[in-house]
């Protein structure tokens, strides 16, 4: 039995530590620990709820829109604000752009190097790489000369002896399986995607002033004025610019991302047999299609248990709890039962080893993440959960895309419950959303043509118009999964604020009953050829797209002592 520690887990957002027991060439047990804590919900107490989106937005700069969206929805739900149709469309576009850009960056820049051996690409034949590229897609950058240029650039880097961010990795590991030409193709697209993301995300600059940390969110609407007759507003020119950015994104996703994904997946089909995890999936649903209190959603919400695609249950937020048995917090009535976020409490209580340390005490508390549970069960959230819920709910386009990918890989739907399934679902979702964005742009243009220029519910802006005491919840599907914010407002100020975040669902530690969280469960059984180079552990963990700064949060500022945490 070898004890493997991966800390830091790199190519993620934030600080994640994995400890694992490896025996007989596979992971026998695993523990997921988040090693950073800020206490943003404590900081929110007493502040103006209209400011909360900017605070929570800074939970994460990678998924830079998601906590702003969840926050304004939670506050609107509490105070009874009703954003007009243009605000809904603007938000859908902001959310969709985040999803598409984030997924592409994850695939190429955070995940690809688990499957692609950069050093092997040095030995690739550019002509054969060109032929491979042309067999996969009609993307124009596919000449031998182009790939020779990329290869020579890598060679220059290698010859200089300064590999920079590519130094000291697991190159040459036996688990890398792609031929040199496929590696070179993927590295070329890694570089292209770096350019692409920078260009595409200008969509956020148009809609939100800047990226990261867009600045156009408002409780009750959006700050981006729309007016076909004003230069300072979104107008016909900006709509055309946005259409162009969307078209380019669709093009890149269809002709580069998905062909690459399917080609790489075809070489690693055995990874459809690893990394299944807890087998329960939760999605809140996203992209409202109308403006009522319970709008129709483009992507449905639902709960799937025990990998049963024959039954999708409805989501009941009352069944959500968080546990702290193995988290560095304590509950007043003991750590053995979970608490609903609206009634939750958190007191940070670090009981781990004093840094610097070698090992965590995994029998006790071992993470700054809590353990969220739905109906007492661990749930996986994210693109796979969303695509499974949509697939099982009969979403026509999702069914077509999923079935098409499965057919091309020659596998059945059971392959989806895996490390590879997560990777595939993320790509499929990117395609789906990139296809859909144009509709919301058209909707915005149609409203402008009708001179519906409303972007905000001014009637609920001033705190005097709010109930003296109110609570609300805001739900959102972030790129990494189901996200919920809960807020309690009293006398116009935040009395309590809580978030349950995708990476908390996925990366949380064991619960009081000893059940593993989704990362931990997915790692069990993952093969490890060389415990000194645990590449395969990275594959399964990265397939969830960890976002640790998001995951750690603190609930219940109602306990005043929280404000007086002892500073050593």
């Amino acid at each position, binding site marked *: 039995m070898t004890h493997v520690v*991966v800390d830091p*887990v*790199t*190519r*993620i957002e*934030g600080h994640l530590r994995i400890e694992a027991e490896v025996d007989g060439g596979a992971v026998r047990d695993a523990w997921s620990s988040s090693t950073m804590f*800020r206490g943003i919900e*404590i*900081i929110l107490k007493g*502040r*103006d709820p*209209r400011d909360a989106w900017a*605070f929570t937005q*800074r*939970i*994460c*700069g*990678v998924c830079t829109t998601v906590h702003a969206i969840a926050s304004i929805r939670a506050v609107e739900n509490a105070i009874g604000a009703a954003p007009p149709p243009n605000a809904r469309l603007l938000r859908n576009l902001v959310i969709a752009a985040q999803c598409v850009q984030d997924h592409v*960056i994850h695939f190429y820049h955070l995940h690809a190097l688990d499957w692609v051996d950069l050093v092997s690409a040095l030995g690739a034949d550019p002509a054969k790489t060109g032929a491979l590229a042309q067999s996969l897609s009609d993307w124009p950058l596919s000449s031998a000369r182009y790939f020779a*240029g*990329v290869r020579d*650039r890598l060679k*220059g880097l290698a010859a200089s002896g300064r590999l920079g*961010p590519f130094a*000291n*990795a*697991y190159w040459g590991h036996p688990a890398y399986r792609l031929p040199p030409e496929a590696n070179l193709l993927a590295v070329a697209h890694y570089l292209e995607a770096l350019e692409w993301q*920078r260009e595409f995300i*200008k969509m956020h*600059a*148009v809609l939100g*002033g*800047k990226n*990261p*940390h867009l*600045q*156009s969110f*408002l409780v*009750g609407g959006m*700050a*981006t*004025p729309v007016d076909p007759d*004003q*230069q300072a*507003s979104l107008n016909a020119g900006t709509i055309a610019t946005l259409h162009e950015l969307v078209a380019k994104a669709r093009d890149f996703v269809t002709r580069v991302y998905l062909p690459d994904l399917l080609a790489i997946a075809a070489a690693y089909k055995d990874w459809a047999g690893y990394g299944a995890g807890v087998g329960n999936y939760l999605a809140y649903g996203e992209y409202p299609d109308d403006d009522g209190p319970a709008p129709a959603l483009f992507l449905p919400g639902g709960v799937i248990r025990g990998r049963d695609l024959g039954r999708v249950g409805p989501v009941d937020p009352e069944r959500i709890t968080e546990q702290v048995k193995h988290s560095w917090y304590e509950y007043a009535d003991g750590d053995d039962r979970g608490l609903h976020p609206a009634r939750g409490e958190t007191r940070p209580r*670090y009981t781990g080893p004093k*840094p*610097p340390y070698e090992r965590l005490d995994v029998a006790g508390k071992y993470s700054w993440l809590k353990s969220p549970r739905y109906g007492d069960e661990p749930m996986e959230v994210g693109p796979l959960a969303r695509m499974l819920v949509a697939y099982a709910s009969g979403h026509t386009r999702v069914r077509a895309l999923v079935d098409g990918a499965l057919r091309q890989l020659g596998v059945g739907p059971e392959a989806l419950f895996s490390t590879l399934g997560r990777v595939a679902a993320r790509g499929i979702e990117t395609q789906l959303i990139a296809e859909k964005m144009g509709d919301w742009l058209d909707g915005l243009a149609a409203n402008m043509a009708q001179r519906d*220029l*409303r*972007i*905000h519910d*001014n009637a609920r*802006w001033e705190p005097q118009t709010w109930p003296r005491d109110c609570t609300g919840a805001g739900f959102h599907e972030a790129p990494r999964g189901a996200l919920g914010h809960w807020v309690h407002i009293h006398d116009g100020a935040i009395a309590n604020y809580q978030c349950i975040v995708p990476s908390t669902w996925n990366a949380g530690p064991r619960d009081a009953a000893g059940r593993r969280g989704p990362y931990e469960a997915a790692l069990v059984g993952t093969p490890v050829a060389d415990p000194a180079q645990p590449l395969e552990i990275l594959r399964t963990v990265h397939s969830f797209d960890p976002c640790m700064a998001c995951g750690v949060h*603190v609930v219940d500022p109602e306990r005043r002592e*929280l*404000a007086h*945490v002892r*500073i*050593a």
Partner: protein
Amino acid sequence: MEGRSWLAGELEARGVSRREFLAFCAATASTLALSRTFVPRIAEAIERGEKPTLVWLEFQDCAGNTESFLRAGRPTVAEIVLDLLSVDYHETLMAAAGHQAEEALARAIRDHQGSYIAVVEGSIPTGADGAYCTIGGRAALDIAREVCGGAAATIAIGTCATFGGLPAAAPNPTGALGVADAVPGLSTLINLSACPANVENLTALVVYHLTFKRWPPLDRYRRPLFAYGVAIHDACERRAHFDAGHYVEAWGDEAHRAGYCLYKMGCKGPVTFQNCPKVRWNEGTNWPIGCGHPCIGCAEPDFWDKMTPFYRHLAGVPGFGLGSDVDRVGALAAAGVGAAFAAHGVVAAAKRWWERKSGGDAA
């Protein structure tokens, strides 16, 4: 001339022409507020330069500055310019993980002791014996002391690394500090505040150093004057509306759609010093005020406490002489005398007033 041939090869491989490269250098000169006569000098310095080693540390961060860094680009060239650095450690980007990642860091700072550049993103917690942020089992403060202590220069990027930022907002649950306070006595520390910092300013800072072999003049918060020397209000494209008393009164009203001044909606531009109006964001695409939302003052110390509530307008912009009675400005403007209030020296007064206020609040 090995450096030149290396860059020439890189440029060629990336399909970047000499002309585009010079255009980048010109844009950088512009960000730095230098004359165009510096363009050849910047280009030459970049071409000749050895690759300096850079290590990028992330502590109590959201990776927003890393994401900002990824948006670098005067079409394709900025990436190359950043390639001029050997980025030997950056958790979000690097291929290596775990022990191998820590080994890369140890090697970088050992082999380039005293000559590497350290970038710090995120605040540094001092509570719970360092347990609020550990990497590889080591406390952030411990890592920062070692890495920044051996660097030729440290760049604190973003408001968290500069001033403590969001984690340090009241009641600062983790005892979070910016680099200047967590690791006092660093000989060369440059702060790039803002949430996040604009990558244009990081690029310009690095190019400045490569060109002149020294760091630029700094303000009292150790921020480069080229980026933090002018108030947003003074460079704002909507300034004429402020002077004329044309204000947005409600989100989506006619004034908002016409791009009038956001002062009454809470804009902190008069007390915020950054070059957003000039360089804008995402390669000049837009900026928050251009998108209809007020400035939230994100480059200033303690902005999460001192600039909030974000939507309450400043009590009065000093030098303006009108106190909080903004409505009167509108009335005066309507009467045709608004131009008389377009006072010079507003910024200097605002800065003095703000510093007085900051000092008072800190006490």
